[in-house]
């Protein structure tokens, strides 16, 4: 034994020490991806010195890292990010908020409703930290305050609506969670000797999150309506004469709303219906967002055919293309009949039109100087997500090498109260971790650890994923550490006191807890839809 000294006694505790060190390291504030990796390396060295870490555990590292490049499911992530960034940079999110406010503003609490609805609609773009909270905090909060909304109520509505996007499909968070849960589920079944394991897909999780997510939207709006009804001074209506013509508001809403709505429903629908993979749907979403942006952005006039015409023609030909493909057999093959050749030629023409719209929109964004910015931001957010994935992969390998998996499993199995107790503990731990860590880190580090034992105990994977998502969303709302509150504080005017923000979110936290309770009592809220769709 070359180890000796005191290291032997400590060796059994290395996995726990590793987690403790990680917490300290993360709090210091160095980027999480590298803190994860660095702490792992540090503890692999300590483990090596103590003779309790087999370097063979690091063998799979390159394969794991490479796996994060080739992971088919996760390729949807950059494309959903792209879609979100386009919607944001082309000011479509802003316009939506504006038009909705005009439409609902004359109602008591109307600005609150519009914030909730837009927050839910922008789900796809907001999986990544606080983007919506910031956007809405900058746009809606000043308006709401000017219109005499209670600062706490306004801030609470915005913080809650901003996190809502995380659990309403198609959010990036659910894609990441879906991928991790799917792996955990496979692992749990393999360890139980099930060699033809059932699978759970991102589509399952999307379907599972839909009803709870929409229920949350309904509950939020119900609460806002209740406040508006019982305390009109907290959420006053905008006087009709200031809002201008009603029909004008409707026309504005009809101009802005349908395209993003159709896009989101199309993307989500095609995934839920099992027609398209998330990656395919995401690429359509990104291209669709580009077309919407192209139809909004003004460029130099005087062109032979206006940009807007081409974009509309492009969108129309995409729809026609889909209809055509659903009706006729367009398979490319030799020896096709005359009718088929004509149909294929028409389809090809539609395709060309579609692409010309894409090109024109891209050119418009480029001329407006935002295209580069959009691509730049997409690349940066994407690399951030995947770097954490890589850091977490290393962390998990070393943690496993130090016996951490066994420790977690033993701890969960020894929890009093059996399965319910274990789930409660996991949820509580994740809730607390949510104060410090982002969704991405928790998904990549914690879920692979606690997932397999819980799933092996017979928990439904979709239900577990949805519970985790709502739980974390709640955590992000909870003072004093909730992420959403920090982002909101950062953009809220000084006149809004922090304590008012805290007070304002408490009812929404209550709603979240009610939702978690409902879900715990009636798991079918999450499992019914996926069962219905996928059988």
């Amino acid at each position: 034994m070359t180890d000796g000294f005191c290291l032997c006694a400590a060796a059994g505790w290395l996995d726990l020490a590793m987690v403790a060190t990680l917490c300290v390291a993360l709090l210091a504030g160095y980027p999480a991806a590298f803190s994860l990796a660095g702490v792992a390396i540090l503890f692999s060295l300590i483990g090596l010195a103590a003779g309790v870490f087999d370097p063979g555990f690091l063998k799979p590292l390159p394969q794991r890292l490479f796996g994060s490049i080739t992971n088919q499911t996760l390729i949807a992530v950059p494309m959903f990010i792209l879609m979100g960034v386009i919607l944001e940079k082309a000011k479509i999110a802003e316009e939506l908020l504006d038009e909705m406010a005009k439409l609902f503003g004359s109602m008591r609490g109307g600005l609150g409703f519009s914030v909730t609805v837009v927050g839910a609609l922008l789900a796809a773009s907001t999986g990544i930290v606080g983007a919506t909270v910031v956007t809405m905090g900058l746009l809606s909060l000043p308006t709401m305050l000017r219109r005499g909304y209670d600062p706490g109520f306004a801030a609470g509505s915005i913080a809650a609506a901003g996190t809502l996007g995380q659990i309403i499909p198609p959010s990036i968070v659910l894609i990441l969670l879906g991928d991790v849960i799917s792996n955990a589920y496979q692992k749990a079944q393999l360890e139980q000797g099930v060699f033809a394991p059932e699978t759970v897909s991102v589509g399952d999780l999307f379907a599972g999150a839909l009803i709870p997510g929409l229920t949350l939207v309904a509950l939020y709006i119900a609460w806002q309506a209740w406040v508006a009804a019982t305390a009109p001074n907290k959420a006053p209506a905008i006087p009709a004469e200031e809002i201008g013509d009603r029909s004008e508001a409707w026309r504005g809403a009809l101009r802005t709303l349908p395209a993003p709505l159709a896009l989101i429903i199309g993307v989500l629908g095609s995934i839920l219906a099992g027609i398209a993979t998330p990656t395919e749907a995401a690429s359509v979403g990104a291209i669709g967002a580009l077309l919407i942006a192209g139809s909004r952005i003004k460029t130099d006039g005087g062109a032979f055919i206006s940009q807007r015409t081409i974009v509309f023609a492009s969108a129309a030909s995409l729809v026609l293309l889909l209809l055509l493909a659903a009706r006729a057999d367009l398979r490319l093959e030799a020896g096709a009949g005359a009718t088929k050749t004509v149909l294929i030629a028409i389809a090809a023409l539609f395709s060309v039109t579609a692409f010309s719209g894409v090109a024109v929109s891209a050119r418009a964004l480029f001329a407006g100087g935002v295209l580069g910015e959009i691509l730049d931001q997409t690349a940066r957010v994407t690399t951030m997500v995947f770097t954490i994935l890589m850091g977490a992969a290393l962390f998990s390998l070393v943690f496993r090498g130090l016996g951490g998996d066994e420790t977690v499993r033993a701890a969960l199995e020894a929890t009093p109260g059996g399965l319910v107790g274990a789930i409660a503990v996991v949820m509580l731990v994740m809730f607390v971790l949510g104060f410090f860590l982002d969704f991405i880190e928790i998904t990549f580090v914690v879920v692979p650890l606690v997932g397999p034992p819980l799933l092996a105990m017979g928990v439904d994977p979709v239900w577990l994923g949805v519970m985790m998502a709502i739980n974390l969303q709640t955590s992000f709302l909870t003072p004093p550490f909730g992420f959403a509150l920090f982002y909101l504080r950062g953009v809220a005017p000084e006149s809004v006191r922090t304590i008012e923000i805290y007070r304002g979110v408490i009812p929404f936290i209550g709603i979240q807890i009610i939702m978690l309770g409902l879900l715990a009592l009636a798991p079918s809220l999450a499992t019914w839809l996926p069962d219905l769709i996928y059988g």
Partner: protein
Amino acid sequence: MPLSVEFIGEALAWAVKIVALPIIFLPLAAMLAGRNRPMATAIWTSACLGAAVLGGVFSWLAVDLPTPRNPVALAGWAAATGIITVFAGLRFGPLRAADQLERAFAMLVSKTASFIKWGVAIMAITQFTAVLLRYVFSVNSIFVQESVVYVHGAVFILSAGYALLTDDHVRVDIFYRDAEPKRRALINLLGAYIFLFPFCLLILWTSSPYVASSWAVFEGSTEQSGIQGIFLLKSLLPLLSLGLAAAGFVTAHRAAGVLTERARP
């Protein structure tokens, strides 16, 4: 021996040992001794040699690690490191060298990223094309499908370092947010040396044999009609390491500059 994969691998390993490793320690030496060229050089050389010796001793002590057995190679490494650092240190001065490398690396990292970001557009359009081909014309092209993976991998790997420069990697910023600039600089400097650089070295060290064996057979797709370039895709891993290390160098040197209140050129 002609230019075999083994030979290239060995040469690259040496390049890392005697060039990349010393470069990593440059900001540290520059920070500790500033414009005092001989002093800075001494610190630099001893830091490099010290790290090598520590590594050697550690792998000798740790029972589970292979002990380095080739004394000639070890001596060669030490000698080369010593000669290079002493010569370069005295000739250029660690501070000036670090300044210039910082600029070069920052330029390299951001130029790469501003080039590769167009991959995002290419990826989206390619995937969209694949969707049209599949759903309208019932054409499933593995080549097109795989090319999306290639572009995606290239985009996020080659912009990882850039995101470090733009501070886009998520931090747990409960305390960091309100910290003084000097405290932040200290965290960034320590983080680079304790977390980031070891990660880069580990990626490089573990992925080298993995990538080399892929190059040795010019590994291609498992699909006949796929892209026969898995070896290129795998090569992204060492590039990730180098890109992150270059960006880490920039952040470390800038942090050191804040800590020593050096006048920025």
